């Protein structure tokens, strides 16, 4: 999505209203450009390695051991965080947190901006979040923060993220970690 940065009071225009939709199979999105998956993976690694307080937001689909794939992904996400020098703040569930969220320890799709503001996060990966809640969160984050958002999705991807890769299963995360290590080495960080 091209319009990175605060849109103040509205998550509109949503990316789809600017003609940007989820990438076709085998492809990825960087802002509004459809690119090869590997190119997107390199850019994602670079953004995470060079922005302040890069953070991974793992969602319920990788936080709970509901399948062998989920367990394997959870291990790989921990490895990803180490390679990317990133923090992890989980999205345990989707219920809004009242009267006040503890922004240091969790993020919520209904007010994700609070966690990003509080921790001054400038790049973040959403992974394992059910698509609807990821989309609701990504629109709010795009509207209200200057965080570079990345969606690593097991299904079709998310056009409201600034970078999205789709159909990400355990083997794809292994590939990403390998690429992230290369980028890290190139950047010397």
């Amino acid at each position, binding site marked *: 999505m091209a319009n990175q940065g605060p849109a103040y009071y509205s998550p509109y225009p949503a990316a789809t209203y600017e003609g940007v939709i989820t990438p076709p199979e085998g492809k990825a999105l960087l802002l509004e450009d459809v690119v090869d998956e590997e190119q997107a993976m390199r850019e994602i690694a670079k953004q995470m390695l060079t922005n302040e307080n890069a953070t991974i937001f793992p969602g319920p689909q990788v936080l709970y051991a509901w399948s062998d794939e989920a367990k394997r992904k959870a291990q790989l996400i921990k490895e990803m965080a180490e390679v990317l020098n990133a923090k992890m703040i989980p999205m345990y569930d989707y*219920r809004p947190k009242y009267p006040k969220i503890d922004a240091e320890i969790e993020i919520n*799709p209904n007010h994700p901006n609070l966690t990003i503001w509080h921790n001054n996060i400038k790049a973040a990966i959403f992974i394992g979040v*059910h*698509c609807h809640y990821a*989309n609701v969160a990504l629109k709010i984050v795009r*509207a209200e923060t200057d965080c570079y958002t990345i969606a690593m999705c097991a*299904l079709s991807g998310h056009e409201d993220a600034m970078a999205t890769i789709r159909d990400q299963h355990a083997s794809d995360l292994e590939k990403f970690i390998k690429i992230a290590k290369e980028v890290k080495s190139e950047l010397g960080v």
Partner: protein
Amino acid sequence: MSKRSDMTNTHNWSGQKLVSTDHLLFEAPRTKHFMTGSEVMKEAIKRCTVDASVSYPITPQSEAAHLIGELWAEGYVGVYFRGENEFGVMSEVAGCSMAGARTVTTTSGPGTLRAMENFAMWSGTRAPMQLCLMARGINSPLTIQPDNLEVQYLLETGMQIWYAENVQELFDMTIAAFTVAEKPDVHVPIVTVVDGFFVSHTREAVMLPDDDIALHPYDPYKAPLPPIDSEMPPGRFLRDPFVMKSNYISYATHASWQWEIRSAIERSRPYAEHYLKGLVHITGDEDAEVAFVACGTASNQSKEAQRELTKLGIKSKVIKLRTIRPFPEQELLEALKGVKHAFVPEFNVVGWLANEVRSKLYGKCDTEIVGGPRVGGGMSLPAEAILKEVMEKVNPGKGA
């Protein structure tokens, strides 16, 4: 009782071989039959591995609902029952769909309005059920005559709306509709509309694939929201606090959620493009200065008028809209290049399609949009009425 446990990797519970949507729609050999819209609806549902259907009688969809019931008796549909009324039906359909069942229902006219509150709830909960609307109109005094005024009320509910012209399109759209509605990045309900009686009760030639093949079952684990279970009760999030509060946080969620539902419809475009072979279908003269923009059987009558205009030496074309949501704005703009007058013939008094066309194209093309002709239901749209409207515009004062 769910029949999922009776399935194998290759066959569904009724023994039909599981195939892709592309195979069912485009590759499987077809044979010719002679059927009404209601009968062909049964044939489509038979090939869709449908888990659940709930019905309530209202003319003219009653026969289609009854025939889906026969499919349950024959072992093709997992669950089938009659609801208390249309509001009950649409609520029960929501429960089935949220629980992970491929679900279909049908209604018409006043039944649609009686159930109205549910439709926005369906889309807001990302439930991908299919509603086949056999349009009838909603006016008082009570009528069962053909009309399609109820479609206007569905336009902003957050559902996809497709409109079939004839029995063949109804068959193909019904199958494609489940597939597109269940795509993880779409996953909002879909309405397949046909004009009641003209399609529901009219027997036409239709090409059908064999009935020993069917769609793969719906996979609720690819849903964009967690399906309901014992720990995730129906409408879990509907009870969550943000809907009960009025502050900036609840505003942000409320706004983002609504844009997300509408974004989901936008994401359906490439899928609909593929399975429907285009969001619009154009017949007639490419270089025409007169065009008809229509949906459903109004496009059929427009084609008749187009043929008559050809005999009079007037070039014209018919732009049939297969989808209303998403609205095929770019396709329509492209098709209207060089067109001076675009007529929008309709089966209702308010002209909701003309309003749609005008609002979507406002400031984007020079074509004059003529809202009409219209009949207020109760009769087919005579090609003569369309011709008269055109001749008064292109040959003013001299009529047809």
